[in-house]
């Protein structure tokens, strides 16, 4: 009798187990995920979705402000250098003319 019961349990287990395992459909590590990735790649390539609202683009205000103030000081500095150069040229020219006057014995 025990042998009969054991045979029935074994037989029913062998009959039920394959359909039960097939119904579970566990995640397949290789083939299935590749297909999913392909679908996602197709989605990314197929459309661009814009960000709506004020967060559309972030412009660095601090850097722009620093740039503006740097431009002001740099241009002023360059202009002062230009005036210094102009003054030096005039002084050199005056020196040369003075030397010419002295050499010619004029007053």
């Amino acid at each position: 009798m025990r042998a009969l019961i054991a045979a029935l349990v074994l037989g029913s287990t062998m009959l039920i187990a394959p359909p039960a395992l097939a119904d579970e459909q566990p995640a397949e590590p290789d083939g299935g995920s590749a297909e999913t990735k392909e679908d996602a790649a197709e989605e990314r390539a197929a459309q661009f979705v814009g960000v709506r609202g004020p967060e559309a683009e972030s412009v660095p205000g601090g850097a722009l402000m620093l740039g503006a103030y740097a431009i002001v000081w740099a241009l002023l500095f360059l202009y002062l250098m230009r005036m210094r150069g102009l003054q030096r040229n005039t002084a050199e020219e005056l020196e040369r003319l003075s030397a010419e006057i002295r050499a010619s014995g004029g007053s």
Partner: protein
Amino acid sequence: MNRPRQSGSSTAWSLILFATLALFAVTLYWIFVVAPVEQQMGIVQKIFYFHVPSAYAMYIGFGVSAVGSAVYLLKRDPKWDALGVAGAEVGSLFCLIVLLTGPLWARKAWGVWWTWDPRLTTTLLAGMIFAAYLSLRSMGSAGEVEKRFAAGLALFGLVDLPLIHYSVQRWRGVHPTVITGKGGGLESEMYWALGLSFIAFTGLAVLLIWARASAERQREQTAELRFELMHR
């Protein structure tokens, strides 16, 4: 900087120099410490405190150039011609500052570096007119004809200055009108920062024009002396 040589004017020049330097220090303190950050634009709005007074200094420079040129055309006195050159050069310097700092603000506020707004366009036009003036004057030692032609160009440039100012009202541009026209105004700390900056830039413009005119006059006198020596 080329300091004016006469003793009385030298003292006045030094006084203006020290006052201007002190004012710039106070102005920078007000801009970055006292004046609040603007609610909508954020910290980039602080460009405004140097941008607008630079535009004002540009008006001073170009205005002085036009006045100097007009008097030179009437009297033919070289000192007025030197004033015309100095005003054009200093005005162009501040015009360049305006045209470079404005787009940095516009990139944040408008999303573009440049747009053909009436005020921007007329400012660029003024810069180009006085750039032409300076190009004409920089071609070797300018003769009498070149000086007179350049003086006429400066007077032509003067016509553009009111257009810059009133272009926003007349042609409905996108340029802000916070302190002119029907603008909403500023908070009191912002007004103080801007007011101090206006005074500091006025002092700077006066100093630069004064020094440049003095240098130009000395250069002209040296050229005259050289000419006399050559033909003696």
